[in-house]
């Protein structure tokens, strides 16, 4: 756990303190995102945790211990640090770059090599091709992977990341974000993550701290912040599409309902009766192999009546109108709009396990909004 107590940072020659009497407690094992417009003091706060900057007054504690009780170099060796510009040593190979902190800890050579290889693979880089390369031979996205690997080399419990994905292209950024989230599920580090991008904050943060002009404006989970922005500044910062952004927080399984009507493709002629019996608004078809292959809604039945071929065609057109349980709402909504459908089948792997409706999404968001 990281605690900032009454932290103030006053730069000489500046009227306003960069950080003003801040109290912030960052829970263990979570990603805490510090977000705000440029110059709000978020980077300064991050850099005070590993003593790259010393506060003018106040105490930073890690697991209850004042950071100034440790020699700064020792302290930093135990905290992963990733910056936007990465700062790989250009004259060292990728393997040597990752090995920097293990070498500071004087690990035996064999252990270092093993760990470096492990990290290169973990970061999704080609081990044989990457190990001996120099940073200038990598792309921006690959370099930042190495940057993250380097910070994780000695498996530090805390990682500080200062706009780590700010300089890579949008596609690589999404990949890096997804991978960090996937890794975090396993490694459960305490990560302090600075960004100026509210969307990145919502995506990455277990908790978000919004700053403005050296002050902490709001601190809470993404859901809390999106649901109850504390003031106009936060509202503006989040943007007018606040509720649409909130959709990112929910997955298909959150609003999934049980399937009421399921039939084989050769039972299509009975679809009207079956749906009526089950009281279902939508029926899903499965093919001979048991795989979900399409859907028929009550509207389709009314439209086609006994025209079984027409129904079959309609069902097939929606053969891809399925999402996974872990699909976020925005992607599901996109599919609903794409297929002009009211329902989507929800799959867990290959297995059909529920139905997600347009209405269900609306209700789920509305209920959360009302909380």
């Amino acid at each position, binding site marked *: 756990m990281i605690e900032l107590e009454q932290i103030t940072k006053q730069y000489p020659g500046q009227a306003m303190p960069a950080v003003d009497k801040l109290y912030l407690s960052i829970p263990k094992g979570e990603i805490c995102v510090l977000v705000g417009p440029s110059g709000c003091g978020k980077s300064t706060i991050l850099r005070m945790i590993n003593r*790259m900057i010393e506060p003018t007054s106040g105490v930073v504690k890690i697991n209850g211990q004042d950071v100034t009780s440790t020699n700064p170099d020792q302290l930093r060796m135990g905290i992963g640090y990733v910056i936007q510009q990465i700062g790989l*040593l250009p004259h060292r190979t990728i393997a040597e770059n990752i090995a920097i902190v293990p070498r500071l800890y004087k690990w035996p050579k064999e252990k270092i090599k093993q760990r470096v290889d492990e990290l290169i693979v973990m970061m999704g880089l080609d081990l044989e091709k990457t190990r001996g390369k120099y940073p200038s*031979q990598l792309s921006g996205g690959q370099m930042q992977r190495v940057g993250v690997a380097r910070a994780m080399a000695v498996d530090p419990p805390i990682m500080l990341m200062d706009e780590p994905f700010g300089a890579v292209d949008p596609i690589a950024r999404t990949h890096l974000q997804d991978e960090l989230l996937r890794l975090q599920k396993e490694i459960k580090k305490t990560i302090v993550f600075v960004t100026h991008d509210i969307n990145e904050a919502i995506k990455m943060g277990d908790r978000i701290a919004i700053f403005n002009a050296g002050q902490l404006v709001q601190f809470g989970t993404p859901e809390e912040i999106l649901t109850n922005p504390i003031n106009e500044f936060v509202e503006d910062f989040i943007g007018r599409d606040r509720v649409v952004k909130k959709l990112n927080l929910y997955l298909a399984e959150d609003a999934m309902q049980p399937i009421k009507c399921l039939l084989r493709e050769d039972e299509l002629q009975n679809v009207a009766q079956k749906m009526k019996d089950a009281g279902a608004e939508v029926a899903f078809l499965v093919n001979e192999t048991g795989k979900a292959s399409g859907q028929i809604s009550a509207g389709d039945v009314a439209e086609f009546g006994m025209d079984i071929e027409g129904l079959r065609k309609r069902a097939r057109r929606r053969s891809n109108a399925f999402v996974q349980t872990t699909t976020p709402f925005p992607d599901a909504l996109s599919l609903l709009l794409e297929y002009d459908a009211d329902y989507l089948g929800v799959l867990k792997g290959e297995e059909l396990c529920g139905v997600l409706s347009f209405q269900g999404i609306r209700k789920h968001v509305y209920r959360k909004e009302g909380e």
Partner: protein
Amino acid sequence: MTLTDFVNFLVKNSKTIMEYSENHFTLVLLAVGISLLIWVPVGLLLTKSDKWAARVLALANTIFCIPSLSMFAILVTIPMFGLGRKSALLALVLYAMMPLIRSVYDGVKNVDRNVIEAARGMGMSTKRILVEILVPLGMPIIFAGFRITVVMTTGIAAIATYIGERNLGRFIQEGLVRSNTPMMVTGALIISIIAIGLDTILGMIEKRIVPKGLRVSR
């Protein structure tokens, strides 16, 4: 002058040529060695303070502007130094100040700040950062300055003959006075060969010493 005259001069005076070359070499080596010992640490120190860097670099520039003949003349008048090696050495070391300090300072200052920031953030000590990052990354610029220093020192050392150094400059000086063309050419040629030779050798060393990662491209 015919080629025979020249060859005759070389053969007849081979002992003197050897002696002068040796003297020339020793003076250059000593001067460069002392310069490195003094100016490299000074250059490194200056990277810590912009204020002092500006002052010292200005001083080095001023010294560098003094014509070598004037410099030797001035030093000779100082009783502690007088005619001879001491004055010659001091002058050469003073001339080396500008290129060496400047290149060390520029080399280190040119290192990407983000690399230093990242290294510091990982817990590398100041000393380690200096040895493992600043010096190797500054090496291309530092070494360029070093090469210039060596070549320049070889040239200026010849002028020290006017204050009593018995080196290759003497052939040129006496050759001029006596209108002895073979003598003049011998001095001029050997000094040039030494300068070019040293520069070539240093060029080869530079290739080995500049970190590989700075040379590879995508």
